[in-house]
């Protein structure tokens, strides 16, 4: 039988996309629909049990890859893992001092914020900072002559803290409104 893609292909290989951080969302969505169009169990509802099992495995794999590629942080973490620099999100919590100072300042600002306006202002500041870091992440991965994956992994860990903080902001907004 012929060789081809296997379930063990990387997310990028599966979606036929170059292995980089910058990604074209429109073509990612289009590829996802194309792949599910070929693999989804609905396409095999009249087929043998063997074909239905294979379809489910592939559809699950495609959804997993899509979920990871769609989210910038998950995508960056995945690129790090592919290059042997695991994020170690649970075990490695070492962060630069400057980053920790800023986190503390933000947390203080959130606990002091008494109005929706104050929380919104803080939220805007965090989002702006996050966007700057995402841009630098793209520069570190896509534009560098040789990528320092350990440094990239550190940046991704920092962004995970920021995302955790954003969800705390959301909870505060819900509580205030």
């Amino acid at each position: 039988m012929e060789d081809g893609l296997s379930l063990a292909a990387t997310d990028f290989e599966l979606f036929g996309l170059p292995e980089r951080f910058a990604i074209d969302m429109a073509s990612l969505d289009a590829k996802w629909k194309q792949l599910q169009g070929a693999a989804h169990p609905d396409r095999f509802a009249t087929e043998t049990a063997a074909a239905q099992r294979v379809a489910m495995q592939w559809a699950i794999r495609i959804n997993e890859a899509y979920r990871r590629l769609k989210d910038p942080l998950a995508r960056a973490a995945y690129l790090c893992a592919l290059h042997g620099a695991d994020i170690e999100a649970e075990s490695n919590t070492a962060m630069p001092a400057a980053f920790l100072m800023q986190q503390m300042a933000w947390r203080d600002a959130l606990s002091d914020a008494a109005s929706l306006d104050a929380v919104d202002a803080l939220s805007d500041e965090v989002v702006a900072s996050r966007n700057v870091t995402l841009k630098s992440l793209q520069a570190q991965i896509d534009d560098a002559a040789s990528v320092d994956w350990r440094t990239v992994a550190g940046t991704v860990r920092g962004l995970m803290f920021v995302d955790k903080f954003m969800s705390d902001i959301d909870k505060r907004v819900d509580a205030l409104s």
Partner: protein
Amino acid sequence: MALLQISEPGQAPDPHQRRIAVGIDLGTTHSLVAAVRHGVAECLPDDQGRVILPSAVRYLEGGGRQIGHDALASQGDDPENTVVSAKRFMGRMLADVAGHQRLPYDFVDQPGMVGMRTRDGVKTAVEVSAEILATLRFRAEDTFDDDVYGAVITVPAYFDDAQRQATKDAAQLAGLNVLRLINEPTAAAIAYGLDEGVEGLYAVYDLGGGTFDISLLRLARGVFEVVATGGDSALGGDDYDQRFASALLQRAGLKTLEELTPRERRRVQTAARHAKEALSGIAEATVTFEVDGVVHDLDVDRVEFEAATSELTATTLRLLKRVLRDAKVSAEDVQGVVMVGGSTRMPVVRDAMATLFGKPPLTNLNPDEVVALGAAIQANALAGNATSGDLLLLDVTPLSLGLETMGGLVERVIERNSTIPTAKAQDFTTFKDGQTAMAVHVVQGERELVSECRSLARFELRGIPPMVAGAARIRVTFQVDADGLLSVGAKELGSGVEAAIVVKPSYGLSDEQVAGMLKEGFASAESDMVARSLREAQVDAERMILATEAALAADGDLLDAAERAAIDELVARVRATARDASPAEGPRAIEAAVEALAEGTEGFAAARMNRGIRDALAGRNVNEI
């Protein structure tokens, strides 16, 4: 000269190759079956021309049953043996059923699912629903004079895993091949062709006889997400009848509804319902009823009806606005409103929707039929009958799935609104030194405390090698299939020693219970179970042979001569076994041959999938999507 054959648009060329695929709306108060005929979805009527089958089953002396209209007609005489609204008990324990004290049934709180003691033994909602599904299946088979190939069955969007599993078990009991379970609001949206339309938010307002459901769907990139759901499981058209009847009695200066005899009360409510239905078309009507032997004739108009029931309509609006608030959207964000359920014929409800959303709701399909019609369209596509519409429906998990961790907290493994099918693994570790077993508790819901989520399954992973606390690595894998059904596995990876278990959620019926029900026989006591199971095995064998031959015709070039010969041999064996099997030994022999065929074609299936994926990446089938 031979003439060229031209097939009807939307139909497979050879009518014998068309598969009879039906959509079934298994409702609380009534159920329907629909199919695509001549390219159009339509509901199938019974031999008296009625499309609606009341969801009622009466168990008779001597093992017989009355199903539908007949059961409903005799409900008053035999309430404890006539099960109505069984859907409320699907996958539920007695404690889950609100207001069960007021129901006439002799409930049995048994493991798996609450039962009702009837003169024919204890029945669960699964068995009652199987009777209704089988009745609809026979109706379809009579209509087409052919076997039903498969069915799409609809479930409410908020149905959890146990309720979905129960629905699938009922279909299995009824001898139906379930092509897919889909959400009711999604089916309604398909019936209106919204899946081919503009991306955006859609509200589905479903006001039935006894229940009110509101769902907010977002269609994006071909995926129907259930954004939010809400409603009231005890609000429906019956409440409108009751309020209207009370108002009429008051105007006539008579007793209250509660003071009437049950017989009088039923008559007044029926008269009120007829007037309500008339007032949906005309502005004025007459109500006639008898109280204390005196006949009363009252002229009524739409204004009076709407005033008497305005609180109910206001309640549905309040619930609808709460759903919008939950989803953090406003009424202007909603692209369209789909009306489902007979009670949405009331002009007051339609006007309220038009006012709230600033556009008229979608009403051109029959609101009683719209869910079944959408299910039929999906069933037709899944069965491979649709030639043009390569409709691909990607649904999502309605509720988050997770595990209990220390302190009664929930660790979410699969987030709500994940596109299905999906799978996710999460690693856990031991809490104590030398711990050799771990209790795995699977829950469903959005809350952070286990006590506020629904418990789906509990199982134990044993044989973990003794280690210090935190050293073991236990990987728990959740898998949700395309019907939204969950399976969970766990294994210990830390030391290289593996132990694994796969569970079906225990909440609901076990495989053994379902098998027992099958053995007991259902529906027609006179039907010969042995003949039936042989027939079903033969149908299944035929299905697998056809599927394999179609695959060989399409992609046989992927196989070398030896591989091809091996598969041909397996097909021949299935065919011979199905043909020659004796009724007693047959079903098992056929199942074994079919399983051998499935195993023997695993590699071929993988190779075909590979080709499909590569073609998809090369963009060769872009037009089909």
